[in-house]
């Protein structure tokens, strides 16, 4: 049984860590991009961002004042039991969000969409979102928090099978150009693409591809991995860099996730996880141990299964 107090502590600790410490894979990705950047201004922007990551770590202050929308992803092992059950878990995550908002401090970004009421703690109706997934043969829970900037860099379009790879490339370019100008998307970004599924699944997959896969990770399907590489290359050859200045730094990495979709359609979503790509993961073990993990490892083989029963994939 996992003690609920350990769940709250892990949720709080990762919220602090995400707000202050840029993930290593992303920082290394930016450093690598900078070595290829020929645009003076774009180069300067990347340099300032690298200094900003240092300043945040040294002073223990948030890297970006725009908290984005802080939220959680929980992967529960099939054998995990949580003290108080899932209601207690959701309560603990809301409590951790409110505490971290006051302590770090994070900007209280969450408001009612119509009357704009702000509870000043990033908690409210349907906030923070908590997405769940499951993992066979495990008794731990993984909690990941993501603080993603929200206003620019995302779009959705219903394409059709006949539009093919050209259609995917065009829509990708459309989004990069539309939100890349003036750097509205705060690029270079991890660009996540959802392909297929129902409309809502398409959005969710793309968002999770951007926020829950590390820079350098490739989709296990070689055909999809090749498309990821091609789109990344394409984004970086628009001629645009950081802040929309002349340059090449647009896409730190491109991640694609797919879902089986309507036979007549090919929905596509694009999401940009910005220069303050804030994510942190902790595993809470059955004995209460909290272990920070650099990779959320959200898209497991189980998540991407293509068979009726999970066991069919297992070796005999």
């Amino acid at each position: 049984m996992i003690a609920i107090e350990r769940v709250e502590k892990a949720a709080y600790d990762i919220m602090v860590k995400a707000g202050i410490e840029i993930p290593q894979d992303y920082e290394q990705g930016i450093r690598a991009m900078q070595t290829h950047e020929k645009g003076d201004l774009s180069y300067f922007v990347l340099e300032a961002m690298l200094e900003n990551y240092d300043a945040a770590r040294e002073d223990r202050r948030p890297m970006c004042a725009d908290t984005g929308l802080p939220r959680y992803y929980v992967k529960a092992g099939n054998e995990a039991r949580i003290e108080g059950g899932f209601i207690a878990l959701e309560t603990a995550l809301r409590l951790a969000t409110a505490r971290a908002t006051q302590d770090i401090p994070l900007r209280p970004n969450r408001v009612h969409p119509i009357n704009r009421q702000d509870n000043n703690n990033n908690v409210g109706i349907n906030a923070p979102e908590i997405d769940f997934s499951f993992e066979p043969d495990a008794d731990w829970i993984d909690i990941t928090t993501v603080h993603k900037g929200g206003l620019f860099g995302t779009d959705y379009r219903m394409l059709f099978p006949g539009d093919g790879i050209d259609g995917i490339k065009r829509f990708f370019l459309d989004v990069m150009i539309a939100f890349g100008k003036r750097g509205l998307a705060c690029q270079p970004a991890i660009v996540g693409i959802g392909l297929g599924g129902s409309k809502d699944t398409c959005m969710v997959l793309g968002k999770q591809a951007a926020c829950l896969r590390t820079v350098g990770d490739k989709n296990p399907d070689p055909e999809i991995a090749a498309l990821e590489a091609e789109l990344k290359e394409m984004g970086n050859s628009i001629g645009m860099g950081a802040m929309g200045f002349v340059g090449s730094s647009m896409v730190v990495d491109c991640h694609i996730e797919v879902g089986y979709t309507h036979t007549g359609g090919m929905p596509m979503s694009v999401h940009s996880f910005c220069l303050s790509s804030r994510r942190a993961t902790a595993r809470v073990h059955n004995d209460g141990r909290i272990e920070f993990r650099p990779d959320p490892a959200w898209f497991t083989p189980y998540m991407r299964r293509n068979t009726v029963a999970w066991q069919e994939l297992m070796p005999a």
Partner: protein
Amino acid sequence: MARTDAGIKTRRLTVPILDEDLASLEIGTVVYLDGVIITGREGVYKRVIEDGEEIPGDVTARSNVSFHCSPAASIDEQGNYSVGAVTATASFRFAKSLPDWFAKTDCRVIIGKGGMSPKHYRDIFVPAKAVYFTTVGYGTGALLGRGIKSVEDVFWLDELGIAQAMWVLNVENFGPLLVESDLKGNSLFEQNNKEINANIDRLYEDLKPPSLSRYGETDNKRDELI
């Protein structure tokens, strides 16, 4: 690897920024500020412009710089403010408030995210002898937070909340900022966009358009959405 930003000029300016300093600023210059700056966005504009409320005290006499942002701040039990980080918000949304804002406050510098459209510079900024500094990144919240030495005051905190209140900030070596527009209305973003736009048709050359098109205000990739 040689640094490629060697050609970029840097200047440090004191607020209120003097006319001659404003006149000599070139787009693409990196700027750091010392003095007092005030924050403002939807909530502040509504109170000052639509509701016609006066800005308390003499801050507008001591500062001609206003910042489109809201800080990541919190207030402890003793009523002390702590500002962790500060990041600009996209400025184009506030264009309609700026003519009155300039007239009422003698503001000469707007700091924000992303700049304004060339038309806004021509029609609003140039007549007000005002320029625009953009923050960098734009996520340099920790660096900008370091430059805030103290919170001198905060207005309408109860009514508007932390994110929308007007914060009066004492800053030192506050930056980096980039000069995006000058007194003539030249714009760094516009200059860069022109160069990038020249390449855009080539990107789409071999890609057939999708079978179902979409309504939209523009489909021209040279246009901007702001």
